[in-house]
């Protein structure tokens, strides 16, 4: 067995190294990776990067233009915009990672159950997925916020509920195509139960494409969080969020243009970063979809 392990481990390491090489060789992929690393690093090291607490007021110094002291200027309450952007990034990434992870896990489980389970369960889950997807996200979000009140947890709940069908549908399709494969039939004929089949054979084969999809969902979630915060129904003030910085920028655009830029640029950069990276990963791991 040890010999077999050695034999199978080597190609995996090689494949992984090859994927890295191909990612770095793709200019857009490498650029996306660099942006993602930059954003993640700034969120992790926000405490060191930010020069001021993000909620500290300095009302006399409101609407300061960018200076050496305030790199992105100050807002209408004299708060340091750079500090708020950096901490806002932490919130955006935290919301997106938590929400995407939860919806990914639930989407995987429900999708596999739909694809592998009895016909009635498949029909029921598809009905639920379609019902959820038929609501426009923002309308659904506003309704939920009215019921639960605006908070970070509400934003995560909204994203999870609206994202599960995205993963669930894809996993179901992949599972349906796999369940008739010979190695699955062989495993079942040897007495394997559905849990073993799903988690030992189906899951490893569907997880790759779904992870790539998840990486491309992160900017979507960040945009949803920013959008809800912009509308005043997302992250509660004074907690910084890119959306609320944008909203402040909009409210005071006649006084300063810097707030709109400071709130808008991180959303654009993050979206580009994750999208480029996700597309490149998709090309690497699924050559059928590779761009010409």
């Amino acid at each position, binding site marked *: 067995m040890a010999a077999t392990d050695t034999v199978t481990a080597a190609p995996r390491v090689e494949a992984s190294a090859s994927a890295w090489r191909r990612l770095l060789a793709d200019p857009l992929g490498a650029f996306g990776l660099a942006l993602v690393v930059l954003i993640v690093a700034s969120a992790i090291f926000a405490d060191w990067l930010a020069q001021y607490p993000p909620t500290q007021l300095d009302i006399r110094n409101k609407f300061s233009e960018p200076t050496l002291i305030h790199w992105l200027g100050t807002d*209408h*309450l004299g708060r340091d915009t750079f500090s708020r952007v950096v901490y806002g990034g932490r919130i955006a990434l935290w919301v997106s990672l938590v929400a995407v992870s939860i919806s990914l896990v639930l989407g995987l489980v429900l999708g596999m159950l739909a694809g592998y389970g009895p016909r009635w369960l498949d029909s029921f889950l598809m009905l639920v997925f379609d019902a959820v997807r038929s609501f426009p996200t923002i309308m659904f979000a506003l309704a939920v916020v009215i019921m639960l*009140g*605006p908070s970070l947890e509400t934003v995560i709940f909204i994203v999870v509920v609206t994202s599960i069908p995205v993963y669930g549908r894809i996993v179901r399709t992949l599972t349906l195509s796999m369940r008739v494969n010979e190695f699955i039939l062989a495993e079942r004929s040897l007495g394997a139960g559905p849990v073993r089949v799903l988690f030992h054979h189906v899951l490893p084969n569907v997880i790759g494409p779904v992870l790539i999809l998840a990486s491309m969902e992160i900017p979507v979630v960040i945009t949803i969080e920013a959008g809800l915060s912009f*509308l005043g*129904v997302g992250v*509660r*003030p004074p907690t910084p969020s890119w959306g609320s910085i944008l909203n402040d920028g909009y*409210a*005071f655009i006649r006084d300063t243009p810097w707030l709109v830029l400071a709130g808008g640029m991180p959303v654009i950069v993050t979206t580009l970063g994750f999208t480029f990276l996700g597309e490149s990963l998709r090309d690497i791991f699924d050559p059928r979809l590779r761009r010409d």
Partner: protein
Amino acid sequence: MLKSRINRREFLATTALGGAIAAAGPYRPAEAQTKSLKVRSYIAPERLDPIHYLGAPEADIFDCLYPGLISYKPGKEWGWQLDAATSIEQVDPTHVKFELKKGLGWSGGNGEVTAEDVKFSYERIAKPENKSPYRGDWEALDRVDVTSSHTGVIVLKEPFIPLFSTTLPRAAGNIVCKKAVEKLDGQRFTLEPPATFGAYKIKKIEPRVRFTLERNPGWPGERAMFDEVDFVVVTDANAAETAFATGELDVALLPMTAVPRLRKAMPPKSKLVVSPSLAYWWLGMQMEDGIFKDKRVRQAVQYAVDAQSVLDGAFFGVAERSTGIIAPGMIGHRPANKIAKPDLDRARKLLAEAGHPRGFKTEIGVRNSAEFINVGQVIAAGLAQVGIQAEVAPFDSGVQKAMASDKAGGWKKMQMHVVRFSMAPDPSWATVWFTKEQIGEWNWERFPDAEYNDLHKAALREYDAKKRHDMYVRMQDIMEDSGAYVFLTHGVNPVLHRDHFIPALAPDGNRVYVTKFKST
């Protein structure tokens, strides 16, 4: 291939001319200056019926269509003038005689405006079964006696001081057509009044977009300045400023934060009127349940809030600190707050006594608009200094009201809230909302003081101005002593308008009387 015939000099000259035109502001030929007026409506009008209207912009519209016996005088001082009446006289504390102008004709063949219409309009608001939110305006009404087709007597059950200051000149005093309204389902209407008689009539209604009026040729009164008036719905303050700059609006009520910017750089051919508002902003604490049930916690908040920072931060220093719910210049205005400045040590001591030496977590409910959110954020920053971690929770105004009225206990979720109430020029209009009867309605603090209630009722009947003043001052003292209130400001109402007319605004700038505009 086409060649450009414009050389560099022509291009520069054209650009310069275009820039000069743009800088000069929207061009309006002389005849256009009296042809139409575009007024910002900061809410979308939904109910043009005085029995259940929602806000001042709606009242601005129905003042043009069916005025009352009297109306406020535009200008800087509060006072009233005759409108649909030729005379009105208080013959004793409970009887008011009036005579209507002759020749006021309802549209749609509904005949002349008569004293029967006045009786119908006022009694319909007063009747409890009609459940008008404005019933309080006619709380003292016994009946209206019709003495002839154009004369009548308003008979009160008891003396009612606010009759001439807030009931008759406001929406509760507007006259609707008895004959036409009685034909309606439920005898009330929303966007389409069944009959009008004022200086203007309806030309076109585009719900949630604009409401266009045109001159009523049958109006026998003073001729209004404009042939047409457009009430344009622009709910967003930024959009309103842009609309003014591009000529889409001629009159616009703007937020307080626009004032410093406009004073630095006014749009061309325009003027800014900044009027002291009667409205009142405060930070309230729900005192019946939860952490703020303890008076020491409420007082700690009173000592921790730096109201001056709120004014500087959220209102850019344009507004003054208020000393209560009654504005300067009115009977009952309090000279000073008991807690005038923050005292953080005292706040910390009170919190420690209440068992919260390290503070606690809470939330400040606010209306979902920039002004309210900013007030909440500055208050939160102040509270953080004594360990109270407050998050700002923005709500649509209807949601907050629903929570406050929730009989299943939804009100318990309300802890602190920043609120602004609009106001009419009589102190009773402010104090009425904090009576025990308003718990579960507008008394969001659930402030239950018996002495306050008694004073409110007594002040409505008190003719002695000094005694009445003292009563209202005492009521605000009781409010502050309860710990549930931090009075913030009355604010100002900035109105931006074109300079080719003199706008007729209420003294607080919150109402626009378009029939009384004058040419410069």
